[in-house]
């Protein structure tokens, strides 16, 4: 057994459930009012977690493997780290700071890459292809560039992984492409990839009490009791990093580090055009077809 530890990072985002968006979902400055929406594990990121865990399964007999989750967001994002631990992740970090507010994809990927760098040498970074709120699919490739490592986008299937190479099937518009490369590499995972395995009963028991300092404060639990538990079982502490912890160039964070500005936001409302009702009769349908022909539409 090789004793070098194989390091896998999964970038995962907690997202508002965009299926139910009301008027109060956007704040005046054009940013999302997350408090008004239920929060879920971004669907592609769960698939990224599965691919990371599949790598771990494949490699764990030849070397130790660690899967670390990094999420940037409000402190309640610790929820998705706990959820990941129930499914097989080893630990995670919540990167949270008001100074990240208003980040576009450039500032987001800058902060995420600084957090990844803090972990030291990494072999694979997995991300989802796309987050369902911002919908840009830009963060994965941008983190790869900031880490100066190659990228494989739209991974649909992990075909092979060994200590020095990985073979991945990618989904393109009109087919698939199989690629091979060494490490380090960043992989963005497509929605067609395998679903994440369910929670593991034993892991659920072991990790149920995992939480962050902010969560202890929020739930008004006894900090002393938690400190005692963490001293015995350090893996139950979900670490939180603020902006200072990731050693950034502060100019590149948040609004100042974001070149794109939201100039205006419009809610989509159904605009009623002038609408003609046609009766379901042969004569009226005949008239309609004639009208379309004479207007050169058909």
């Amino acid at each position, binding site marked *: 057994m090789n004793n070098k530890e194989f390091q896998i990072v999964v970038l995962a985002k907690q997202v508002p459930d*965009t299926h139910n968006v009301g008027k109060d979902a956007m704040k005046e400055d054009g940013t999302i009012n997350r408090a008004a929406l239920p929060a879920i594990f971004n669907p592609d990121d769960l698939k990224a977690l599965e691919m990371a865990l599949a790598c771990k399964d494949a490699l764990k007999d030849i070397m130790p493997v660690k899967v670390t989750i990094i999420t940037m967001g409000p402190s309640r994002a610790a929820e998705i780290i706990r959820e990941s631990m129930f499914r097989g992740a080893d630990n995670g970090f919540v990167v949270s700071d008001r100074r990240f507010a208003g980040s576009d994809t450039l500032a987001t990927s800058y902060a995420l890459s600084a957090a990844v760098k803090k972990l030291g040498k990494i072999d694979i970074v997995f991300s989802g292809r796309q987050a369902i709120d911002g*919908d840009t699919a*830009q963060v994965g490739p*941008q983190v790869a560039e900031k880490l100066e490592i190659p990228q494989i986008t739209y991974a649909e299937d992990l075909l092979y992984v060994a200590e020095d190479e990985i073979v991945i099937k990618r989904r393109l518009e009109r087919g698939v492409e199989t690629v091979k490369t060494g490490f380090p590499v960043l992989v963005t995972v497509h929605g067609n990839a395998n679903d994440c395995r369910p929670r593991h009963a034993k892991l659920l028991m072991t990790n149920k009490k995992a939480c962050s300092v902010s969560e202890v404060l929020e739930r008004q639990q006894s900090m002393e009791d938690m400190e005692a538990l963490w001293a015995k079982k350090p893996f139950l502490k979900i670490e939180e990093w603020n902006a200072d912890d990731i050693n950034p160039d502060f100019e590149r964070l948040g609004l100042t580090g974001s070149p794109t500005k939201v100039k205006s936001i419009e809610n989509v409302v159904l605009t009623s055009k*002038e609408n003609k009702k046609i009766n379901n009769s*042969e004569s009226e*349908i005949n008239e309609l077809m004639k009208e379309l022909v004479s207007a050169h539409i058909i």
Partner: protein
Amino acid sequence: MNNILVFCEVTEEQHIAEVSLELCSKARKLADRLNSRLDAIVIGNEIENIEGQLYPYGVDSIFYLSDSRLSFYQTLPFFSTLTKIIKEETPDIVLFGATSVGRDLAPRIASYLRCGLTADCTSLEIGDHTDAKTKTVYKDILYQIRPAFGGNIIATIVSPETRPQMATVREGVMKKEIYNENHKGEVHNLKAEDYVNEGDFCIEIIERQIEAQKINIKGAPIIVAGGYGMGSKENFALLHELANAIGGEVGATRAAVDAGFTENERQIGQTGITVRPKLYIACGISGAVQHRAGMDQSSKIISINTDPNAPINAIADYTIIGDVMDVLPKMIKSIKN
């Protein structure tokens, strides 16, 4: 320079991609508005007649890199070439198709250049912008308009400070229009060794399986689309019959595709294809926001639905309240006479 650069993608069939020609058409209008030059960059392996393919759409200069290793798209060699060209030519605006290639390449470039990139724009305009805090006025910048939040909002995004201003645009969103059949420009041949590094080939393509493009609903002037209300795969045959009679193609909603009524390639909407035909006939389609996102730019919309309150009716020019299995045969009969 204040020129506009369009990244022109090459298809599996070795042609300039439709989406790139659509972008050139749009970029030509923006260039005329800004009094600037329209540049295109093409990377590939011995592509035939790129001048003939691009000049009619108003391209003034083509940067062309041909290399036997670049028959298929690979991130790093394309990234190295584009970042170097952008540094040399300093365009004001750079546009990409929001394809699997464009969405892989553009963010990496924007990250390297530290400039703004707006994804999946549905409209691009030129206008002024006043910063709300500093009151600085930015003249003639690019308004990048895109849906976000699952299609529930439309945002106008600007990148006032950084250059180039970068955006990706989906296929079928902009109109492809010949600018001038006789328009001519110039070609700059780039040498691979000046732009690409050996280390850029560190990801090896082992195999590719590409399906032939058979269904072409994107370019169809008329689309007869069916939803879950069509009821069955057999009933979808009526849609094909009507489409054939009026020179259209058949499209579908995700619910119809999921139910197995028709092929995945026909799905229209946020996670399918965006279309803007002259005529869209929506048959048994409720009109969910995700579906409308892919068809609401159609010039004329007819809705056939049993439910007078179906949301699709609100964006339709004509509604026929009735059962599709009753209405469609009448339309077919009418057109055949």
